[in-house]
């Protein structure tokens, strides 16, 4: 019994991590229609900026409020980089979707190499509050606090994103802009601003995932973002392109599936099952869990 509880809670922690990574990806993909391969870079920027801030920024540290400041700095850095990327690289290519994807591919290559050139390829210990290393006993299962932290953060991010989409006009503007940018401008709306904002939010979400991922793994390394990215992609697609709620469901499904299969099955089966789930979902419901049926 305690094994099931342990696996469920740690699986949810993993799901939360996947969701945090996927949420920004899903937002940018769903709204701005950019399949952002550079998302891993934003993740890395967030993680390294937090790491750097904890050691160098006055007021920031690895514990208590200092840690919050460090994470805030990391998130800000991620958002900033995302905005820069949008302004300089993505914006001039609007309506050329394929090229946008390609630029993000190039960026993911160059960006990760840049992180590596600056801080080396080896993992560095990540500054984190001591309590995140401990476990909380839940019905006899030792659940890592870092996982619980991720779950809380994921729920908060989910709420914030939904509020953004529901209560502001931006969601509307961007969804329309993806379909037909020209027409949105012809309605008197500066669609460029909205797109930049979406990138900023996507970047911030990624950076938060990077920082919390650092807490979870205990280290930060340049390739970390990339390895999480593939699962994030799977989550985004299973969840239905660009549906934030769908991503949340999919993350939970993927996290739990992986955890339980890895425990009860043989090694590596967890990954295969996730990939299998992706294939099955797409074949049965090409639009994903939450995608609407397109009339074509």
């Amino acid at each position, binding site marked *: 019994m305690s094994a099931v509880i342990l696996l469920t809670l740690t699986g949810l922690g993993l799901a939360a991590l996947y969701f945090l990574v996927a949420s920004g990806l899903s937002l940018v993909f769903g709204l701005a229609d950019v399949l952002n391969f550079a998302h891993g870079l934003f993740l890395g920027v967030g993680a390294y900026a937090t790491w750097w801030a904890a050691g160098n920024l006055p007021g920031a540290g690895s514990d208590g409020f200092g840690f919050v400041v460090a994470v805030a700095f990391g998130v800000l850095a991620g958002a900033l980089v995302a905005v820069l990327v949008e302004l300089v690289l993505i914006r001039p290519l609007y309506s050329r979707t*394929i090229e946008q994807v*390609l630029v993000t591919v*190039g960026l993911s290559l*160059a960006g990760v190499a*840049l992180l590596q050139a600056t801080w080396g390829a080896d993992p560095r210990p990540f500054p984190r509050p001591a309590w995140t290393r401990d476990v909380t006993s839940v019905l006899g299962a030792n659940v890592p606090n870092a996982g619980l932290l991720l779950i809380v953060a994921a729920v908060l991010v989910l709420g914030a994103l939904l509020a953004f989409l529901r209560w502001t006009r931006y969601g509307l503007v961007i969804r329309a802009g993806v379909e037909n940018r020209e027409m949105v401008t012809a309605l008197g709306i500066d669609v460029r601003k909205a797109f930049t904002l979406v990138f900023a939010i996507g970047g911030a979400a990624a950076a938060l995932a990077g920082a919390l991922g650092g807490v979870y793994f205990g280290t930060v390394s340049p390739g970390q973002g990339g390895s999480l990215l593939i699962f994030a992609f799977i989550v985004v697609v299973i969840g239905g*392109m660009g549906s934030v709620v769908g991503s949340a469901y999919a993350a939970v499904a993927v996290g739990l599936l992986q955890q339980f299969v890895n425990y009860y099955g043989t090694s590596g089966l967890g990954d*295969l099952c996730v990939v*299998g789930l992706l294939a099955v979902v797409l074949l049965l419901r090409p639009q994903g869990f939450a995608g609407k049926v*397109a009339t074509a």
Partner: protein
Amino acid sequence: MTEVKSPELPAPPAAVPDELTPGRVRWHGLRPYLPLVALVVAAIVPYSTVNLPGIFEGPLNSPGTLQLLAICLVFGGLAAGYDLLFGRTGMLSFGHALYFAAGVYGTDVLVTKAGLPLWQAALLTVVGGTILAALLGAVALRTVGIAFAMVTLAFAQVGAILVARNFGGWTGGEEGLPLDVSGLPTALVGVANTVNLYWLALAYLALVVFVVHRVSGSPTGRVLAGLRDDERRIGVLGLDPYRFKLVAFTLAGGLASAGGVVYCLIVGGASPHVTSSELTLSLLVMVVLGGPGTRWGPVLGGILYMYLDHRLTAFGTSDAVNSLPAVLSRPLSQPLFVLGTVFILAVYFFPGGLASLRTRLTPVLTALRRR
């Protein structure tokens, strides 16, 4: 018709296939023979001792240079084959690496573990790779757009996981599997015979270009071009989109596994690099770098990409780079940084890829000539 955009990727920046534009002005009678001339020139390159300092490490006929060129040529062919899917039919597959990897590992395992003679191993591998593509394509093509990209990615990922698992020690896991050369024809073994590998790669490239060219110029190629624009319309005209896409997918898969066979011989083994989704991504990069849907673009893109990929490691450690201040020299010594940056710049400044250079340069050239 009340129509809704389905969540599909738009077709790639389309180029009208050369083959389908009849009556284009031929500048002179020689033009149709240019590919042949290029082929002959490429074939006699190994007889030249010309030294191109900075471009190659040694003279053209040195094994190091020929090896590099051979790898470039294979990827030129691979990119051209991938373009059959991406540039010409508008199918964005993220799993093309799988069929290439099937070629590499198929040959390697059959020769090294099963002890088959090379020709049998090669034949079996290409047939097997083609069948694999046909089977997986038959499933994956039930989806379109991003979903298709993701299903193909998922299949390729399964391949990567299986190779990494090292079942029964067959694939060598992350260490890869060196090719057992004891049963191979001696002409393919040893540094002194690198030139034969070069010719093999050249032959592969020529084969792919020829096949892709013929197919795109054929009635089927016309249908593929139509599919790229509007699949529904093709159906209403009385053609089964699924069948045509499956043929393109299978053909491209077969060509890729043939490329894998050649690559395995050139590199002398298999390593899990070839199963990674990054390889498919780099194929995409190559095609775009060159110009999707054009005859020579993908080939040039593939050659250039692989050349940079290999040569940048040398560039990164060169004195010129090392003497720069650390802010510059550190990133520049990372080959991937340079490659990524070059690629981004290329997307910006050559939107149609290398293939569009000609049309872009023509006005400049004529202006110059008039002077």
